[in-house]
């Protein structure tokens, strides 16, 4: 038995780095300090997997054969797509982008179905933001919009935002006002001082009216009709936003993936930008998967763009709607899909899923998933952060180093991808 202290939980975008992991008989048996979903991640992935390292057409195969067959498929493909990557290390993500570059393929990550609209708002408007430690040390007003951290990021409120004590907020919870904007009560509601419950699909209108109020414009009560929110409520919030010393708006998928999408995020980013005329205000997207922030970063430094990238002309191009996974599949495009650390068959809309049923899938995952079961070639890989060292980026872009906690008989995503890359290179020569 041994313990690993200060272990990093790479399950969600909080990336807590204070976990004490206990290993007994090559299994993780305890993950102290971790939240419920973090515990489930450590304990679930910290077990030996009874799976072949590779399956081709449902039959167990050797790693070499898997790599060879995957490379052959990719080289023969006319329009391969690489997708996923949010739950693996940056080291693996770097290999995936290199592979896309070599294949002149399309590459997209889970960002396109979560915070892609936040990335697009950044492209149009910029982004006043801060690290989570600034929230802890300074924020006296915190607004969660379209996010339910109690369930999606269970330690977010205690570790960073609500009850945390910091340099200029020595009393923690008492020093902060918490506002929750969501279409229905959630387990997070209890933590809020102020609850605002708009009707579904009204986020853009409310954010836009809030901008007007912040800037001192007159908004008619009738403008808010049908929004579920009164002018008094909204004026009160606008007043608090201007009067706070350091405010933070956390936006979740309730804003980014509901009606309005990138218009909603644009409104939120503009609102926060405008409040900075009066006081300090920051915006932080509540990134979901453990290293989805990392894949945005890797893609941006290697290609200039954070998601939805096409190498068809020999250099990277970006166009959400054209080079994003759901849109491509929905149009019946892509003839091979390489899916890494993601389960699009389970999570994408039916019309996109239908295309995945038609084309060969090469899947890399640490466990069985709907995608890996449907895949023509399926690699079982070791878990980054549990069996493999690697880098992970927290939702606020802080990079952390995950250390190996226990060994695995499976190869890492990085190893499989870099070996496919080498094999592709050999085929091409």
């Amino acid at each position: 038995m041994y313990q690993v202290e200060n272990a990093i939980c790479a399950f969600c975008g909080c990336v807590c780095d204070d976990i004490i992991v206990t290993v007994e008989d090559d299994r993780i048996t305890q993950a102290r300090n971790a939240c419920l979903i973090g515990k489930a991640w450590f304990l679930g992935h910290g077990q030996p997997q009874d799976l072949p390292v590779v399956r081709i057409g449902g039959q167990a195969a050797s790693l070499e054969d898997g790599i060879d067959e995957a490379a052959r498929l990719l080289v023969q493909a006319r329009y391969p797509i690489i997708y996923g990557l949010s739950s693996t290390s940056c080291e693996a993500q770097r290999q995936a982008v290199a592979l896309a570059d070599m294949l002149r393929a399309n590459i997209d990550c889970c960002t396109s179905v979560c915070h892609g609209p936040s990335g697009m708002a950044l492209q149009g408007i910029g982004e006043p933001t801060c690290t989570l430690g600034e929230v802890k040390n300074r924020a006296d007003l915190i607004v969660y919009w379209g996010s339910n951290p109690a369930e999606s990021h269970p330690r977010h409120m205690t570790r960073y935002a609500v009850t945390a004590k910091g340099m200029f907020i020595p009393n923690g919870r008492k020093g902060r006002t918490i506002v929750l904007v969501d279409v229905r009560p959630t387990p997070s509601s209890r933590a809020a001082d102020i609850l605002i419950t708009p009707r579904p699909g009204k986020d853009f209108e409310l954010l836009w009216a809030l901008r007007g109020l912040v800037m001192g414009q007159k908004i008619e009560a009738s403008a808010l009709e049908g929004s579920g929110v009164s002018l008094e409520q909204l004026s009160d919030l606008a007043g608090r936003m201007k009067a706070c010393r350091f405010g933070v708006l956390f936006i979740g998928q309730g804003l980014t993936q509901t009606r309005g999408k990138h218009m909603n995020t644009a409104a939120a980013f503009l609102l926060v930008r405008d409040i900075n005329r009066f006081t300090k205000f920051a915006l932080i997207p509540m990134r979901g998967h453990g290293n989805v922030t990392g894949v945005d970063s890797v893609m941006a430094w290697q290609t200039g763009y954070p998601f939805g990238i096409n190498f068809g002309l020999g250099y990277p191009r970006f166009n959400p709607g054209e080079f994003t996974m759901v849109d491509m599949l929905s149009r019946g495009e892509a003839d091979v899909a390489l899916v890494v650390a993601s389960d699009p068959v389970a999570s994408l809309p039916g019309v996109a899923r239908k295309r995945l049923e038609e084309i060969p899938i090469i899947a890399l995952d640490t466990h069985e998933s709907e995608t890996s079961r449907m895949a023509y070639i399926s690699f079982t890989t070791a878990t980054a952060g549990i069996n493999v060292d690697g880098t992970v980026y927290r939702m606020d872009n802080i990079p952390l180093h995950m250390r190996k906690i226990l060994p695995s008989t499976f190869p890492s995503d990085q190893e499989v991808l870099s070996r496919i890359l080498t094999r592709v290179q050999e085929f091409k020569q």
Partner: protein
Amino acid sequence: MTRILHGEVYDPINGINGELRDIFIRDGRIVAEDPDGPTIDVSGMVVMPGGVDMHAHIAGPKVNIARKMRPEDHRRQVYPRTPFTRSGVGSSVPSTFTTGYRYAAMGYTTAFDAAVPPLAARHAHEEFNDTPEIDKGFFALMGNNEFAMQRIAAGEHERLRDFAGWLLQATKGYAIKLVNPGGVELWKFHNNVHTLDDEVTGFGVTPRQIIRSMADVALELKLPHPVHIHCNNLGIAGNWETTLETMKTLEDRRGHITHIQFHSYGGTPGGLFHSKVVEMAEYVNTHPNLSVDVGQVMFGDTTSMTGDGPLGYLLYQITGRKWVNVDVETEEGCGIVPIEYKDKSYIHTTQWAIGLEWFLMVQDPWRIALTTDHPNGASFMAYPRIIRLLMDREFRRECMRTVHQKALVKTTLPDLDREYSLYEIAIITRAGPAKLLGLKNKGHLGVGADADVTIYARDDDLEKMFSSPRYVLKDGQILVEDGQIRQEVFGRTFYVNPTFDPGIEADIRKHFENYYTVCFENYPVQLEHYLPNPAAVSCGT
């Protein structure tokens, strides 16, 4: 093993000024004796050491969020994949691979990122590992570090020194960088400092105390590069007094004042500014403890990116364009805004002329380095054009005709006839920066130096000559022929390992527990994982 024969060699560190020499290379180093290997005949060509960029923004969180913000910048300039190179994009904020190739294709083999928040050091190293061809390193931001300011306020100078030593060691950084000392801390509550003696609220220190203390720390730790200062009040009319006061605060301590062009403005805050280079260059000329780099502005669209958060906000207010601000817990900040410098603008012409005045008025070329503060004044790819502006008086006059005339005549630029020689260009682009950085194996072609050699075919158009070298060798390997990349290699990462009393770690740990959101143990960068080609530069000679 390589022999480079019959070149016209400019190697200022060894006093060689255009003499015909042969250069011999073995195992990546310059050697004295003929190794009798493959020969490159460079008769009639100009041979210099590889270029050294001592101040640019090429890697890390600030650069990367700028990339994310500027898809339009990428579409303007695309680089398809070749058999030797990865594809890439970008004019003012290129992708990492493109950054490495572009530097090398221009004859530069070393570049330093000038502003990395320690908390994101790992990110900078990750990008370095995807930046081919060049050797690199970074300066760690410390001018607004809360732990450091608390030590200064408490008069605990030794503990400040130990902390700085620990921080450099933990991040694998190279030098101490101050950015708007004290001001960025106040910006976290929407404020700023305006003079060197304003108090940093809540910390009981002044910018002057920070500057003096950190200058001492850099000397006491015997770092290869002295304190590297981005002064307070960047870009504000009247800021020349702050800059001069910063220089005076250093007294006889060594110090480097960076992108000094942005800090040389007369006038009153909020108004139009004018050049104060005459007065300031006089001070630099008479104070050998000081060095500067210019931060030359060139006309065109680029991206302003700075650790100076309040400056970013100011630029956003002026331009109304996109604006990124990032406040980094207990350490630093950052601001990013796209900016277009226009030759028809009074202000931009003044900035352009001020940069050139600096080059032409500092007498000792060893203490002034060519930079654009990439990409703030312009992309590093503007260096060949700047070289032509410095070497070719007629070309300079031609350019002067296209700028804002009323602004131009208020500067001394029209009266300056100096032309740089190739020898002086070799100083301000490689020998000087290498010396200022304390890199003993860079910037020269003496025995033992890294075999980084740039060979230019002579051309009447100096811009063309310097933008497309005939050959570029790094560590003895040919990376570039006729401006085209022939080979991809991954260079070193320079860092320092200063000595400090590890007793400080208990205090730092406590500070982490209270104010950071990462564990003390998870903060230091793992050398073996993030620096595949580590190159420790020794402290203390």
